Structures are given as C-alpha cells and as structure tokens.
C-alpha cells in the first residue's frame, strides 16, 4: 500500500488529511458543540442595552477594557467567575479585547452601579484618583441611535434565531423574555421605558429631563449595557 501511496500523491494527501482531521474531530468537535450554546442565564440584549453596546464600540472602550476573565485565581478574585464561551452567544462581535489598560468589564454589572458609572464617566479621577481614563462628557448630551440597534435586533432574530420575545431560562430557574418591538416606533418606546428605569437612579438633572421628554442621552444606553454585563 505504501508503494502505491508513494506513486499517487493526491491520494496520499487525502490520507494525511483524513488522519489529521480525525484527531481534530475527536478533540475539538464534542467540546465545541457543548460550549457554543448559550449558557443558562445569558439573555439577548434588550433594545437599550444593544444601543449602549454600539456606543461602547463607537467610543472604542474595547481598546482599553477587555471582556474576558481568564481562569486564574488572581483574575476571578478581582472580576468574578471566569468567562464561558456560551456567555458570548449573543455578542456580535464579541468584545474580548486584547489589552487591559483599564480593568476587565466582563461582569462589571455585578459590582458597579448606575450612579457610580454616571460619576465615573463625567470625571473618572473624581472616583478613582489615580485613573488615567479620559472623561466622556459628550455621552451626557449626544442622543442614542435606537434605529440601528433595532435593525441589529431584527437581523439577528431573523438570521441567527436569537430568541427575542421568547422566554429564556435564567440561573434561578425563572425565565425572562426580552422584548423586541414590531416597528421602529415600538422599539423606541420599549427603549424609553428601559431608559426611565436607569434615569431614576441617576443624578444629572439634564439627563433626567431629557428622558422625561422622550429623548435618550447616550450615557443612559451605555449604563444599561454596562449593568447588563453580569
């Protein structure tokens, strides 16, 4: 057989491919099939959270902040449970980042609050004296782009079967349904309802007034997103 293989390079190549592919199949596929499913407790992003995620990307937060807790004691002490691949099931794209100039934000919603983010975005060094993070004051005046977030919701629901308007199991055994509007107007009103909850915990009067008038400053959407990172 080996003499025959030496004379037929194409079939030799096919044989080599099969041997290597077999190793890949048994080592990679079973784990991949299991790990790529959404972890229980991972829900799709709501309209306002997704808007905030776009703001996070627009301001390149991922250039300085990672969203990946590695399985080391030193990291889990600081940031919480190590990341599981299924937790990124609804992240398109995932924002692992490659560098930590600032801390990891994978689970920042567990240990920071709305008003802390508000103070921090306005003047980081006021809450963390040694912080080198710049202030993001324009987030308090710029208005959020709900249309784009809604377009993404529609796209991922249609093309990837992301379960909007369907119950998703949570860790405590309950289920949660993330609403997606049937029209742009409905999406905007859903986002505004979410924004009111966030704004109630905020102190900036201009932001509160804007939300009361039906507008959503970027800071509100961004905080909604950061609070959803758990």
């Amino acid at each position, binding site marked *: 057989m080996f*003499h025959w293989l030496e004379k037929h390079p194409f079939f030799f190549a096919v044989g080599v491919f099969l041997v290597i592919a077999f190793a890949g199949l*048994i080592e990679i596929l079973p784990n991949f099939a299991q790990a790529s499913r959404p972890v229980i407790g991972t829900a799709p992003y709501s309209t306002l959270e997704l808007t905030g995620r776009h703001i996070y990307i627009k301001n390149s937060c991922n250039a300085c902040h990672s969203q990946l807790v590695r399985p080391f*004691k030193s990291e889990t002490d*600081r940031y*919480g449970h190590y990341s599981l691949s299924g937790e990124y099931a609804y992240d398109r794209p995932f924002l692992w980042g490659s560098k930590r100039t600032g801390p990891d934000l994978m689970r920042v919603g567990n240990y*920071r609050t709305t008003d802390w983010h508000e103070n921090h975005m306005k003047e980081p060094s*006021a*809450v963390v004296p040694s912080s080198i993070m710049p202030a993001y004051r324009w987030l308090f005046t710029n208005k959020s782009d709900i249309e784009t977030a809604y377009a993404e919701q529609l796209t991922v629901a249609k093309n990837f079967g992301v379960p909007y308007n369907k119950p998703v199991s949570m860790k405590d055994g309950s289920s949660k349904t993330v609403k997606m509007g049937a029209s742009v107007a409905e999406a905007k009103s859903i986002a505004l309802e979410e924004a009111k909850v966030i704004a109630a915990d905020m102190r900036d009067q201009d932001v509160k007034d804007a939300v009361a008038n039906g507008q959503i400053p970027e800071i509100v959407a961004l905080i909604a997103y950061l609070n959803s990172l758990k």
Partner: protein
Amino acid sequence: MNKLYLGGVIFAAFMLLFTYLSVSSSHGGFNGDIVNMLAVTGAIALVMISAFVVIKYVRQMQTDKASGDLADENWDGIGEFKNSLPTGWAVMFLLTMTWGMWYLTVGYPVNSYSQIGEYNEDTKVHNEKFEAQYKDITGKKLVDMGESVFIAECKVCHGLKADGIGGRAADLNHRIAAASVKHVLQNGSNNQLLGMEMPMPDRNGLINATTSMPITDAEIEALATYVSKGLTGTVGADVFAATCVMCHGADGKGVDSMGPNLKEFNTTLVTNILSHGKKGSIGTMPKFDRLNAKQKEAVSAYITSLSK
C-alpha cells in the same frame, strides 16, 4: 593526523576561546555564578559534538562507495538502496505507535489537561493556604487585612478615606448620617442587615408609644439628629425611647433577629451588607459575595475601627 581532524580541533579550540572571552568579558564575568559555568560547559559540549559529527560525515562522503541492492522504484533514474531499519529507530517507532494508541483511547479522554482543572486545583491550594494562615487572626492583623480588602474593593465608591467621596457613597467614618435616618424613617427598609429579619415599616407603621400616633415630621427630624449623633444628646431621646427601642434596643445596639445596631458598626451588620448589598438614601450598593467569610469579617473589623 588527517588534516580534517586538525581542522576540527582548530575550529573547536577557536570556538571555545571565543566562548571563554565573551563570557569573561561580559558584565560580571566568571564570578562563581553556576549559570555561567553551565553555559561554558554546554558550549564545550556543543562545539565538540558539532565538530566531530561533521568530521564523521565528511569522511564518509570522501570514502564511501555505493553498494547494495536497489529498491524497485526509481525516480528519474535516481535509485534508493534497500537499507534495513536501524534497530533503535524501529523500537522508537513502535513505542510511539503504542503510545499513540494509548493516548487516543485512554490518555486524552481520561486524563486530558484542562485549564479549568488547573484553575480548580490552584484555587483549592490557595484557599487551604489562606484558611491555614489566617483562620485565627484577630485584632490589628484583622483590621489590616480589612484595610487591604477595602482598598482593593471598596475605595472606588467609598473613597480611600472611607468618607464616601463627597456624598457619592456612605461615609463610613460615622455609623449613620442624618439624611439616611430620615430616608429610612420615611420609606422603611428591607436590606437584610441581620440576614433575615423582618423589614422595617415606613413612617405609617412607626408608632410613637407616648402619643399612640404614627411619627410626625418633627419627630423624624429629632430622631435623625439623635441617631446620627450616635444616640447622644437630649433632642429626640424621648421619641427614640417611645418608638425605636422595641426593635433596636434601649441602648440602640440592636436586638437579635429584630433590628440592627444603630450606635456602631459590627460584624453581623457589615457582613450582611457585603453579602446582600443595600439600597438606601444614596443609592444602591452591589453585593460583594466573592469575598470569603474571613475577608468580610476583616472588612467589618476595619470599618468598625474607623468610627471608634
């Protein structure tokens, strides 16, 4: 002597001289450091082996004549001798195949490396070490541990001096601020400060035993002053005695499973706030459940020490 050997010896001597000079002229030189000596020994071995292996094959090329049986195949007129397998190679080949079979069927599935496994082992070792080292610490050491945990976890909201950074979080140098007392009296409280006590009712459920009426705005003011000053002074003392003592005790130091200590911080109070989080007049405090029991106790000790 063959000139090839002569060349080899000269080359080896030159390389050794070069190694010796470069090590001795480097920073520190031969200062008795074992690593330098190992490097030089390694260099000698490498140079000797290289020189003599090269010499062996060069001589073989010079003297060998082609002989033996040719294999059936030839490639554009270039043939291959039938050489029997070297024994050492054949043994290694068979061993590798055996190991491969073992790894495929037993080694990988049963015993594969996992990052998470390593993490779990690390965590276990760390926790056991922590437990052994800090199980019995008390007093100043406990306060010091609490301070270091505070600086790592709490300072971003409460500030390095635990003063709440100008009202952004609770000022932990005092047990309770007048604004917080007022907020709790008006809205009630359900923060599980003792773990599982009954929630405190809002102002409509707080009856002044003297007047048999819910407390008034003036009484709330008086209580806020009295409690925020550490239950001292005369203003509000009568209202406190008539309204609060049933749950918080006559001295304000709390009653088990009823009401928390209002006079000073203690371990139960702080530990429960760290475990459950808290929502009060300033805002929401998230829970810090990833601290272990000893760390929570240490933070309590530190915070208690601040207001003394």
